[in-house]
């Protein structure tokens, strides 16, 4: 049953991916700009043979349908093309930048969930009293502050003034990257047997994770609160209370589980959003992730890179949505896939 369901989802995923890639391709090519303008130097434009060499190298002399067809054929072979600006396979670029983003996203998500869900529960239980107002303030301030501002202030206070936190980047500035195994620094530093590097990587993760986590914590806390409030007003909760169950058991066991379905959806979407890159956080903290790669690709009209990032983002959203849908079943047996 599950397999049929997954199979159907995969087919839909392929259709969605095709649509996304086609749209991105058309939009990128409809920009009235010269993609080689930012790649070729002023002097190189004097010599038509240099331009011709570039045009040929990226197949820009072919018609749009031909280019799209060639691109799709390459994608099916696992080749996402070569970036104009980094001049290496887009797949290699994505492999380099994604792990940094995943590491930061997981850490930020951990912060947001670990603080956001309890905060939401606390607020719902103390509905319209001081804790609720306090939780609302924390959530709203986090979600309403521009992240580059929070990031700059956090660095200024904790790194520059108090000297508690390490500086920007994934490692201390005198340290250099360990040999690349997975791209996940926490893993690679251990693989290299370098505990000092591991500790440094962990310390460098904390501040950006807190800043990014705080930003998304609000939405998780607010969703938990409203969803839990709704569940707490239902009949079965009243029944549970009437049976004399302790408040902790009622909220923590009976109510929370049912209240978590919208929360899981929100967490999933937030995580997918984080994975497609947190440009501003990455910029402030000098974090070499996928977000900045995407922005550079689009400002330089780097077609292969734009399409690569678009496809990656689509795959992330499709996968995360699938996981969320499967999780529903775990939380609520009534909607389990059969």
């Amino acid at each position, binding site marked *: 049953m599950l397999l049929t369901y997954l199979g159907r989802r995969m087919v839909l995923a392929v259709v969605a991916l095709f649509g996304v890639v086609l749209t991105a391709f058309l939009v990128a090519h409809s920009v009235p700009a*010269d993609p080689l303008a930012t790649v070729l130097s002023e002097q190189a434009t004097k010599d038509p043979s240099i331009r011709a060499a570039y045009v040929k190298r990226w197949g820009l002399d072919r018609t749009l349908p031909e280019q799209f067809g060639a691109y799709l054929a390459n994608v099916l072979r696992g080749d996402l093309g070569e970036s104009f600006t980094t001049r290496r396979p887009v797949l290699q670029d994505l492999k380099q930048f994604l792990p940094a983003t995943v590491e930061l996203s997981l850490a930020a998500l951990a912060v947001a969930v670990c603080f956001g869900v309890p905060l939401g529960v606390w607020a719902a239980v103390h509905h319209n009293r001081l804790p609720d107002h306090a939780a609302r303030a924390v959530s709203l301030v986090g979600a309403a502050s521009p992240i580059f501002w929070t990031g700059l202030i956090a660095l200024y206070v904790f790194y520059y003034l108090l000297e*508690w936190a390490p500086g920007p980047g994934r490692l201390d500035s005198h340290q250099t990257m360990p040999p690349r195994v997975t791209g996940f620094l926490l893993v690679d530093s251990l693989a290299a047997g370098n505990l000092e590097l591991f500790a440094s990587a962990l310390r460098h993760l904390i501040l950006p994770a807190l800043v990014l986590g705080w930003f998304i914590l609000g939405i998780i806390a607010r969703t938990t609160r409203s969803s839990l409030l709704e569940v707490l007003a239902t009949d079965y909760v009243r029944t549970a209370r009437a049976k004399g169950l302790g408040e902790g058991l009622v909220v923590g066991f009976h109510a929370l589980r049912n209240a978590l379905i919208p929360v899981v959806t929100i967490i999933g979407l937030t995580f997918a959003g984080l994975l497609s890159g947190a440009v501003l956080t990455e910029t402030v903290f*000098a974090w070499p992730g996928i977000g900045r790669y995407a922005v550079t690709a689009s400002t330089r009209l780097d077609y292969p890179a734009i399409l690569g990032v678009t496809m990656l983002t689509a795959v992330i959203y499709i996968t995360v949505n699938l996981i969320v849908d499967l999780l529903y079943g775990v939380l609520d047996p009534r909607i389990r896939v059969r």
Partner: protein
Amino acid sequence: MLVTRNVMRFLAVSTLGLAVVLLAGGGPVQAQSRQETLIIARNIDDYVTNDVHRTYEYTSQILDTAAYDTLVTVDAPDFTKIQPRLAASWTVSPDGTTYTFKIRPGVKFTSGNPLTANDVRFSLRRLKNLKDNPSFFMDPVKDIQVVDDLTIRIVLNAPDASFLAALAAVPCGVADSKVVMAKGGTDADDAKDKDKATEWLNNQSEGSGPYKLVSFTKNVEAVLERNAGYWGKKPYFAKVIFKHVPTGTTQREMVERGDADVAHDFDVDIVAKITQGPKIKILEGLSMNQVYVGVTNSAEMSKELADKRVRQAVAYAIDYDGIIKGIVRGAGERPSTMIPLGILGGDKSLARKRDVAKAKQLLTEAGYPNGVELKLTYWTAPLLGVASEPLAAKLQADLAQAGIKVTLDPKERSVAIAEYRAGKIQLMLASWSPDYLDPDPYADAFYGAGPVPKRVKYSNPKVNDIIATAKKEQDPKKREALYMEMNKIALEDVPEIMLVQPKNFVGLNPAIKGYAIHPIWWVTVANLSR
């Protein structure tokens, strides 16, 4: 509250754990190695390639000039003086077309291979035949001959007084031909299709310079290590790490905290907030960059601007001093034309002063007593550190006072450049950075056969003659006089209007010695010490 209590307990423990990790500093980090490590905080996302014969971006030029020797070089304090590097000496034939270089004996590449004239020939031919951004440096060259192991002869198509300055450019660096060929490199005519060595050269250097590039991670870091077998003076720093830090504000904090020794991306706004002291000092130097307005001469693009008097009126209407004072906070100069101050022909004496009455009079003479309407195109990203939006707004306000109504046309950079290159502009706010430090590339690029005159549809046979004569002229005095003559005509014709030659800023740990801002490759790292 079973679940929440557990969660709370987990939170308390993990927060404590994190705090311990957070507060525990790096410990006594190898103090000695930090002493001998130079850390440069810099936005390195301009990176495209470290292959010395393809390099054109700033970051890779800093790395490659440390890793590869060129025959000659230019360095502080006088960037117009050609100094020997790999070449021990050279002679120029009386007709100015044949250069013969004696190569310093005993130079070895980091691979251990000896450097010979063959490597020089291979490198310059590879540069030419890759047909990439810097290939134009070899345009004047007709033939490269190996005379013996340590003598190389370069024959030019025609005499070229700017040739030695071009040879000092980073892409003319000499690479180890044996290793490069082993990695798939070639200098053959079809190198643009056949050469496969770039991927190798992106991650390590194969040169003979004071440093070796040992690793490069895009948007993360670049690491140079001292070349133990270097022929020249041993550099002070054993290791130089370039850390990718995109914002100047963060770079500043790193320098003040001692986590970086040098910060590269300071603009006037950051500099204005810094108090210099024992933690940080600011170094400034005039760049060879230009921010200017390109003015079309084509009636097809603007019937008004095709009239020289209207172009002059635009130039008279601009409040140049106000731009330097207000937009770049005084951190800039203004030469009279596109030839920058600091090289031959760079001049301030002829610079046009604002004269709104004169601008109005010129418009009336041209038949537009009620003024004209023009469009100013620009890209929204900064122009080599100068904010473009306020500059465009300032120009709009200035021109309005002379009766010239300007519509602003902001665009994404790639779109604006495409329009500019196609010549589809009336007024274009743009910037330029130097290829090499000689007046000829500037004269050619803005007034001769180069790219900009094509875009603004400017051509003056008399100017072309002057440029051609000056290029051949070996006597600097006579050459300078020729460029001054060109400057006068350029001011009259107005194919472009020079606005600012901005200053560059660098933030430094005050303990760092020997830093001089280089107008092309930022800094010669081998000159630095602590």
